[in-house]
């Protein structure tokens, strides 16, 4: 009798194959496919967009390339699925993509209810202010009495009210239904200040007729931590995703860049030797090779290089690193040590 049951259960198990989400480990699946399927945006300046040659490039794209470099030693073994804000989580849950790297804000709700794990905060975003240079303002605290353009019904509007009230400043809201209208109003001088997420302010500035006439103030008044996301239920893949990001930060902290990574292997600094896999077998513990960080840094670069190339001084956007500086340089980007 028990044997018959076993046969029946085995047969049932065969006829109902497991859902893709809970099937064999994502790393094994990715390795057997030969590429990572990475969900990106359908086009956000600096984060993920196709360039003139039709290749995806940007900050979020480079994270997926780093992951591919760590696994395959080839940053091009990654395929991109452009996703909208609405279908991004469904695509991840259904297994259409292995990882979602699409400037997604980390919130408690998303982390728990949607069955997702946030890898880390690759970019600390938040609400900022843009003003005309001619106003000669250097801080948001000097904005008292200003008229502010914003979108209606967003958290942006609430944050704005809180910030001005807390600092006992007067202001006047000029709200619009869409982003484009808001920008147009700011450009035509209906208001003195434009407020939205800082990363968006920089890309908006690029689209204005004379970008150099506008400045983005240093104050960030809300928390929008952006980062890559993986599915619940695969800790090994979560670890790899997490440590790929940490490794890029640690490499920057230790001064290891794509230009000097080969020389750095000869370094006597034990931290660098561990980071580059010259000592110990930390990479194998992750299910990768020991030189996985060498692969990431040489093929894609450290965090600072990736930031600079896509968003920072080396790019068209020229975003100030602000909070995204390393903790050693006054920012809050801090990664656990590789050891």
């Amino acid at each position, binding site marked *: 009798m028990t044997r018959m049951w076993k046969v029946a259960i085995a047969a049932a198990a065969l006829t*109902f*194959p*497991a*859902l*893709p989400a809970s*099937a064999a480990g994502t790393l094994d699946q990715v390795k057997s496919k030969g590429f990572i399927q990475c969900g990106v*945006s*359908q*086009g*956000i*300046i*600096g984060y*993920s*967009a*196709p*360039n*003139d*040659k*039709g290749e995806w490039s940007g900050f979020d794209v480079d994270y997926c390339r780093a992951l591919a470099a760590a696994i395959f030693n080839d940053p091009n073994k990654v*395929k991109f*699925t*452009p*996703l*909208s804000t*609405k*279908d991004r989580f*469904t*695509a991840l849950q*259904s*297994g*259409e993509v292995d990882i979602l790297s699409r400037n997604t804000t980390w919130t408690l709700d998303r982390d728990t209810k949607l069955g997702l794990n946030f890898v880390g905060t690759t970019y600390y975003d938040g609400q900022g202010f843009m003003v005309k240079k001619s106003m000669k303002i250097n801080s948001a605290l000097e904005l008292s009495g200003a008229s502010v353009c914003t979108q209606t019904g967003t958290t942006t509007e609430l944050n704005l009210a809180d910030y001005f009230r807390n600092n006992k400043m007067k202001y006047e809201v000029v709200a619009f239904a869409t982003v484009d209208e808001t920008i147009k109003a700011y450009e035509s001088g209906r208001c003195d200040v434009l407020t939205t997420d800082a990363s968006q302010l920089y*890309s908006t500035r*690029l*689209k*204005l*007729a*004379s970008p150099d006439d506008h400045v983005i103030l240093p104050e960030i008044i809300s928390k929008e931590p952006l980062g890559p996301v993986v599915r619940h239920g695969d800790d090994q893949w979560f670890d790899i995703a997490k440590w790929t990001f940490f490794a890029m930060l640690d490499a920057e902290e230790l001064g290891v860049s794509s230009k000097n990574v080969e020389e750095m292997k000869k370094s006597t600094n034990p931290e660098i030797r561990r980071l580059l896999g010259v000592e110990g077998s930390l990479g194998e513990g992750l299910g990768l090779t020991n030189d996985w960080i060498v692969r990431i840094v040489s093929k894609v670069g450290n965090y600072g290089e990736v930031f600079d190339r896509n968003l920072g001084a080396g*790019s*068209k*956007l020229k975003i100030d690193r602000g909070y995204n500086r390393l903790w050693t340089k006054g920012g809050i980007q801090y990664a656990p040590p590789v050891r």
Partner: protein
Amino acid sequence: MSDIAFVRKEIAPMAPPPLAVGGILGWMRKNLFSGWFNIAMTVMSLALIALILPPLLRFFFFDAVWAGDSREACLGASGACWPFIKAKFGQLVYGFYPIAERWRPDIVFALGAILLAGLLIPRVPFKRWNSILFFGVFPIVALIFLGGGNFSLNQFIIGRIIPLAAMLQGAELFGLTLSFWLDFVVSSVLITAVAYFVANALGADGRFAARAAAALLIGLGAVLLTLDFDFGLVPVETRQWGGLLVTLVVSVTGIVTSLPLGILLALGRRSHLPIVRVFSVCFIEFWRGVPLITVLFFATYMLPLFLPGGLTIDGLLRALIGVALFSAAYMAEVVRGGLQAIPKGQTEAANALGLGYWQTMNKVVMPQALALVIPGIVGNFIGLFKDTTLVLIVALFDLLGQIRAAFSDPSWATPTTLFTGFAFAGVVYFIFCFGMSRYSMFVERRTSAGRRR
């Protein structure tokens, strides 16, 4: 002396009509200024043109930037930034298709255009062969050229029972999977034999059944052989297709499959056979009741949750099937409208002449019904062509999607990039839709020649 003062000997030369009747002025008076209402309309139209045309011309031509290779060239201009379109043109047409392989879509475009022109222009001979080539051979050729061919076929029928693939260890010859073809040949022989014996047992002509089965299987085999054969083309997965290529693939597939499917469904809905009728009604009402976005979204993101682990269907194919079924349901209702306009006497007369159902439909009812609903059919085609932009939500970049993606390239971010891109998309869509519309008018004139007075 005669007391007749003057007699005209020849006819006086014809005087030109008064200025107010003939010539341009006359035409204008008759058509533009014939009454106070007409005058008001004319003035208003002229004012509207004067209001719209100059800014449009300024944007498209006079203030536009024509040369340059980065955003700096377009920063100061208030007109279109054409270098942006030029830089992105390859992407707008082919999407992410590898640059070295773009000659393949080119060949498919050219082949499709030649065959389609042959079909559309009445004077071109060999219509029958042409349509066989276009509807039968061209899709397979296009699939092989665009995708690269050399599909790996696994099992046919017997292979699902006996593990042939494992026995032959995936041996291949010219890209042909030997285990599959062994499977195919054995299965085909078996099916033919079964057809023979079953037909015989039922008292029908066994030879005929066997021959029909064999012919079908040989046809299927020929198609599969072409698909499995290794032509040495680099595989390009559908994820890399994009731009106008995807727009055309989706819309042409939708247009070509929706009409025959729609005709069958319309006939089914008017059929006297209850099962056929109920099925058709359910099918049509289901697909008309669901928005296309839902269909696409479900096919792309929900289907993988239900399919067994190993089985994946290509994303573009899923969208294609969704679009085809969706448009077939709409087409069915348009065709049914035409069918209802044909008086019952036509069918009765055909029956009296001894024509069967299909002959009646084929020779008497359909030619009249379809000619009546050409505007509706073409309206559907045009709607479908524009609806293809919805595939963006399932991560396929059609022309519009590709343009939107190009907006976020930091090296082209300027105040006018957005407008330039949308203006270009508008022009392209207009050319296609207007072309379809004009051709449909031509067909209408041709098919209604008998009814014209």
